[in-house]
């Protein structure tokens, strides 16, 4: 058992890449390996064409932001931000100029003389960020930098970080366990589970075309339904045809089970049980549970041989959908475009 195993990941120049995974998945271990704080037993870490695996952290030219911010409490805000410049022997006039510029970038103009303990959580976050990019590092690494902030501020900072990234253009590797944060901010997301890469792709691709059940389950909400394979290599659910061929993206071996991933918001509710041209699957089901959650409502609908499908519905003041109750019969359909089929290791 390794903390990281067979991870082959390329981060493109100027990209915002997020390492996403549950706690203990190895994402922070990978980040620390890039920073140089732990050395892999084998393998290679290259910046451009330069092998870095034996280079100590202080020679890697990497800016880091920690979850705890790790600001130096015995220094002022300006001294904190100026620290990497001082180490690079930048003269004091230029240091002052660049610190002022960095403070302006993170919207803290005029707070340079403050002590760290006089700052709010959000301000500390910004100082940590300014300190990490002021020396124009080759890579910016962030380890769950927003997780200590409350929800509102966190969402605001996500947008700000994204803008900042666009402005600076610095290659960024970001670690989080929050899928929404990853979807919001990233150019690409690398999903890690048990020390292995589960999928690396853009947020849209990850959401719309998960390549395995872990990703389908981890990102967004989903109902995973078992499919049966008939003799003509067609995939069926409850005797309805889902796909008339095996998906090309996966090797056609019969050692796997196949599953259908249904996103709750992609299911539509119909007045009658008619199948329209675009529909792939239609179900008639019985509402088991209905919860109103503000901007949306969630219904749990029982279809076929006791499969529970989650259905997310938009709400508005006049909508009759908001008034479903357990026991109601409903018609559901899933359009052809929203069919997601994934292979699953056969359960013994």
């Amino acid at each position, binding site marked *: 058992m390794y903390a990281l195993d067979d991870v082959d990941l390329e981060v493109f120049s100027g990209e915002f890449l997020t390492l996403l995974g549950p706690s203990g998945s190895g994402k922070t271990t990978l980040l620390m390996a890039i920073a140089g704080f732990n050395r892999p037993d084998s393998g290679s870490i290259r910046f451009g064409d330069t092998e870095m695996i034996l280079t*100590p952290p*202080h020679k890697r030219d990497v800016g*880091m932001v920690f979850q705890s911010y*790790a600001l*130096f409490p015995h220094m002022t805000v300006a001294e904190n931000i100026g620290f990497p410049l001082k*180490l690079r022997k930048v003269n004091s006039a230029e240091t002052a100029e660049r610190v002022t510029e960095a403070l302006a970038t993170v919207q803290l103009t005029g707070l340079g003389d403050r002590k760290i303990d006089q700052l709010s959580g959000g301000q500390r976050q910004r100082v940590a960020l300014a*300190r990490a990019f002021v020396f124009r590092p080759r890579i910016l690494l962030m380890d769950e930098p927003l997780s200590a902030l409350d929800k509102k501020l966190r969402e605001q900072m996500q947008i700000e970080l994204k803008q900042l990234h666009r402005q600076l253009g610095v290659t960024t590797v970001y670690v989080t366990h929050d899928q929404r944060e990853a979807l919001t901010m990233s150019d690409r997301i690398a999903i890690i589970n048990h020390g292995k890469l589960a999928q690396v792709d853009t947020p849209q691709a990850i959401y719309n075309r998960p390549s395995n059940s872990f990703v389908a389950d981890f990102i967004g909400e989903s109902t995973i339904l078992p499919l049966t394979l008939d003799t003509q290599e067609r995939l069926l659910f409850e005797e309805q045809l889902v796909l008339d061929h095996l998906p090309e993206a996966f090797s056609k071996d019969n050692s796997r089970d196949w599953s259908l991933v249904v996103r709750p918001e992609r299911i539509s509710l119909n007045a009658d049980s008619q199948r329209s041209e675009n529909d792939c699957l239609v179900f008639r089901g019985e509402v088991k549970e209905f919860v109103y959650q503000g901007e949306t409502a969630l219904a749990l609908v029982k279809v076929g041989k006791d499969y529970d499908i989650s259905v997310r519905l938009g709400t508005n003041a006049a909508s009759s959908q908001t008034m479903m109750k357990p026991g109601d019969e409903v018609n559901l359909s899933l359009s052809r475009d929203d069919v997601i089929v994934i292979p699953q290791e056969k359960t013994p």
Partner: protein
Amino acid sequence: MSWLNRPASDTQVTHGGRLWLYLVAAIVMILLVVPTLIVIPMSFSDSQYLEFPPSNWSLRWYHEYLESSKWMRATLTSIKVGILTMCIATPLGTMAAYALFVSGHRAARPVFLLLITPMIVPVILIAIGTFYAYGRVGLNNTIPGLVLAHTALATPLVMIVITSALRTYDLNQERVARSLGANPVYAFFVITLPQIKFSVMTAALLSFLTSFDEVIIAIFISGGVNATITKHMFSALRDFIDPTIAAISTILVLISTLLLLVTQYIGSREK
């Protein structure tokens, strides 16, 4: 006595309800402190013998102490050994505590326990062992011998003080400093050390006191021109009862109290 009915804490306990506790605390404090303080009036006695309370007052025993070359030499030895012990034990203990704290190696805990054994083993055993070991290498009755033995006693104290300081310190600060371009040594001295400096000072004072107050090992391995003041006091008490001892004790109590107060003050600054 209205204060007796006022709450003593956030709970419903009043000062009246805690009266018994205050009494116990007072008795304990008296029992602990009085035997130490009793030497103070005795040291100002005019009598040839230790006597309490003194019938006549004088400073003659302080003169006796300050004018005796034997006592002065012993005092100087103690101070010299104390300072040297402090200068060796503080960096040594700090380095050991830091290394064991950051390594995370599974041997770190056993090694830590091994290094603090001088605090656990009865001092008399260390004294006897040291005496025989020094006999072979010729370190008995020498300053280096004393300093080495006292360093072994003081280092565990330093380690414990520094480790507890590091527990409340965010080691990520050092990581950040290194990622920003500081080599590990620079990161320690510029980022970590300034933030644990009060604990380091506390540890230094404690190691000085450990050596300065130490008597058991000194009895065994110090002597002649390199006898410590505590060793001389012990011999003096055995051979003849003389109020000079009381005068010296008073001075020692004063020095120790002063140093401990400074330590406390430094400790409160760090909070």
